[in-house]
């Protein structure tokens, strides 16, 4: 760790404003989907806790099923986002 040059320049990434805007919109849309699912879980757990014990899927109760669903949904949405996003600097092709 010879030098700590805080002023050194970092090469700036080339950005296409349209691509950035497109990706942000996709991100915001998927974010809203997840927020809705997460809010549903919070609401059910808070206001209808007795419902969380009922069996729903494969003999699992609602609390476990919904918990697993939220974890899997996060991954699924993340993969969808990666597929839909466009890459900056290649003419707006998908990454």
């Amino acid at each position: 760790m010879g030098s700590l040059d805080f002023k050194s320049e970092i090469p700036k990434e080339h950005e296409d404003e349209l691509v950035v805007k497109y990706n942000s919109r996709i991100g915001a849309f998927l974010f809203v989907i997840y927020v809705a699912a997460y809010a549903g879980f919070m609401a059910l757990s808070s206001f209808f806790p007795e419902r969380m014990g009922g069996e729903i899927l494969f003999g699992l109760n609602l609390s476990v099923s919904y918990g697993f669903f939220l974890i899997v949904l996060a991954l699924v949405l993340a993969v969808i986002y990666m597929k839909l996003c466009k890459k900056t600097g290649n003419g707006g092709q998908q990454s």
Partner: protein
Amino acid sequence: MIHSSSPVAIIIFLAFISVVLGISFYLGAKAKSSKGYFTAGGTIHWAVNGIAFAGDYLSAASFLGICGMIAFFGYDGFLYSIGYLAGWIVALFIIAEPLKRLGRYTFADALDNKFNSRSIKLTAAISTLVVSIFYLIPQMVGAGALVQPLLGFPHYVGVIIVGLVVITIVVTAGMVSTTWVQFIKGSLLVCLCFVITIMILNRGISTEPKKSDGTPVKIFKHDLSSAEVIPLPGDAQRELIPPSEGWVDKPYVRILDKTSGEVSVWRKEEGDKYFETQTMVAYKDGRKMANGKPHGKGEGQGDLSPVGYAYALPGGVKETGPLGPLSFIQTMQSSNVILWGSDKIMEQDGTATTVYYQRPSPGSDFMTPGSSPTFKKVRSKKLTDKLDFLSLMLALFCGTASLPHILIRYYTVKDQISARKSTVVGIAAIGFFYVLTLFLGLGAMTSGTMDVSDSNMAAPLLARSFNELLFSIISAVAFTTVLGTVSGLIMAASGAVAHDIMSNYLKIDMDDFQKVRSAKFASIAVGLLAIILGILFAKMNVNFLVGWAFNIAASSNLPALVMLLFWSKTTKEGISSAILVGMLSSLSWILLSAQAYKDVYGIDPAMAIVPFSQPAIVTIPLGFLVLIVVSLFTQKKPQTI
């Protein structure tokens, strides 16, 4: 409980420490520039960074805290898993790419990109320091909890060891080595937990579990009638001790064995049923008695017994045999398990008796939200009682994307696409781990090896229920996980001091040597502070402490980050005010909460000033509100020509 160490455990532990330090010295020598030191030169591959995210994030809280909470209370611990993972959605969809676009070395860089404001630099740096320190405490507590059974050292020795090793890592190396250490331990942790999950499923659930050496686990007496427990007047062997002082109006009876002089305590439940308890008596002179005997492992001494078994399984069987993942959870939902609660009884001479009592609990109860003291109010009918739960879930959701040591990891990859891809890899690894936590926690609950006095030990002791080697390996991996997370936090804190405060805010003119030295001094100071706090907070569940860190991070950093990105009228004054108000309000709220009264100050929690312990539901909106109001009042007037 007193845990014994083994030579194998010590050898594996030392081997892991040596490898971690070796990596740090080797790679640290390559980090020659500030860019190399703070951000690994932006050269880390996205896949490596993604797993390093997991290594950084899956800390003592995730591994020890969540598993411990599930093992002690059931599903409520899994709520943390859900919340921690959900937070990554905010990171991926909202924060990752803009942060990579705007920032350079630290979180303050991104916030200050548009304004070049000294107040933003200062407030963001202070916020980074506060959040890092709050996040450091549970990591240090977890390290102490691990070293205790592994090496046989007291808790504080574990905290000091981890503190000194981490200070060495950070002072000698930078982000390159931290990343690779986190990558290796992240991979190892997820893989090992997967292996243990398979072993849990293969073993199934039993009402009479055995230890790894084949000896049966002690089954505590339960459902006895008063005639079987309470001696009659004139009994030559036993005598009922009349309730006095703290024992009055408590559901316990104390029986004195006249021959041995030992006192046994029984808990009276509904239907006049009596359940055997365990006790730890601490006298004012420092002596301790465990289950009626002087505390120790020697001749004539006693210790708390390991616990954790099913009380009744579906179909009345004694053991299920191997189970699939779904049938394992189905079986737990339909079983009754003996969980354990605790009660502290004080006497006038200063003697404190902790009674650990059996809580026969049906799966229909502990596999739904609200079975733990933390979340029990979620089952209340009052709206205000539910706010604690809602507030914590909000903090977990918003907190991940506001943690400084996670945010700086976005600067270690070359571009925005890599930032996005590494987040997706991180979500996959972390999500998989969090699914496993439910199996690990429930497996520990029925492993027969749990320590009633320490929930943080559930996961390593679960491994010990299979064999000593697995216990040694998982403890060593968990310990290196703590090292990696703590290194990341100290990196973030030293960056805030050296880069944000000294160089950018105070504009101290330093040559390279002085800059390096100040970064190292900052690391040493934060490391020493972490050691002290880790010792002071030794008895708190690490998961709860992390919840506080998330609250502070989300309240101070998220409103500023989000509004900077999405509201064009945001001003520098608005950002500084939001950080300051969010941080101070959440910190004050936490310090005035019932949980702090009980666990930090040791006073009656009913005297707490604030109505619930988790502040996020109030302080995050407050941060947004302050930012909007201050920004509207500090808009630049249009220039007239």
